[in-house]
């Protein structure tokens, strides 16, 4: 089977990073297309603010470009490293300002749902976003990585530099707190159970 020269979808991320360090400009474009959406969405979910998430995403990608020539193949996944960088950058931001108002949460982009469903979706997402912002930082990060980014517990443990058991504990405590927090809001916000 032949593969077009410009088809980078089958190339592993680590190999693309090596190509980038060797001067391949197409590799930087492919890495940006592949990684920036994930980095941005994760930062936005943690911070609840689009503009700040864009700054964080740009900074995280800049750190990736800088580390490219020193990247040691096979030691860690690029995505794991990036999630860790984004997590640390978000933690720094959150320590400077804590709490997200519902007004700051962006509107959903699902245009196919009915207006009623869209309202429900908006209310649910906004309520969860706000509740996550009220959680301790580490719990919120663990819950987002597990249930929104859908990463495995060992991968989260590597990102957060803790044991798998500690991840399980953080996620469990975070979800208990979220459930309690959202229980009171569902009725208030008109969310159907």
């Amino acid at each position, binding site marked *: 089977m032949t593969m077009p020269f410009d088809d980078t979808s089958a190339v592993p991320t680590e190999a693309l990073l090596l190509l980038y360090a060797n001067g391949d*400009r197409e590799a930087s474009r492919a890495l940006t297309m592949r990684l920036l959406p994930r980095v941005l969405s994760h930062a936005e979910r943690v911070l609840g603010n689009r503009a700040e998430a864009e700054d964080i995403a740009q900074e995280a990608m800049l750190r990736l470009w800088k580390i490219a020539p020193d990247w040691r193949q096979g030691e860690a996944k690029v995505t794991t490293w990036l999630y860790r960088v984004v997590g640390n950058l978000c933690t720094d931001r959150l320590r400077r300002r804590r709490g997200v108002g519902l007004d700051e949460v962006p509107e*959903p982009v699902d245009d196919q749902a009915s207006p009623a469903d869209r309202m429900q979706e908006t209310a*649910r997402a906004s309520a*969860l976003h706000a509740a996550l912002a009220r959680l301790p930082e580490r719990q919120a990060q663990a819950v987002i990585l597990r249930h*929104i980014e859908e990463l495995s517990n060992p991968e989260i443990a590597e990102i957060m530099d803790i044991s798998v058991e500690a991840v399980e504990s953080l996620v469990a405590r975070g979800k208990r707190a979220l459930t309690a927090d959202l229980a009171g809001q569902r009725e208030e916000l008109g969310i159907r159970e």
Partner: protein
Amino acid sequence: MSNAPYEPDPLEAEFSALKRRVEPPSGDLMARVMADADAVQAQILTPLPKARVSALSRVMDVIGGWPTLAGMATAGMAGVWIGVAQPAALLEGSQTLLYGDANAALVDLDPSFGFSDLDGEL
């Protein structure tokens, strides 16, 4: 267990709603990230400018630096001392080393022995 099969979650509806709320990166952010990538890549590919090196530094590099220079100076001083003082022990030692048992090595040929004996045959 760390990766147990997924079970229905009371927060599933909220998690799903948040998961679906994905807005792709803006063109402006893409452009900024790509500009960073190009700038860093240019730095990576540009060799560092060579620092100016003095003649002394180049000589030192060739001979192996200060430790070698110190060794050379010591050897030079020792040579001068041996030449000036000519220590007796060293002279005896060097004679033994150079000539060894001279009697065994010398062959005193009779002057009458020579190729002249062969003249007639050649």
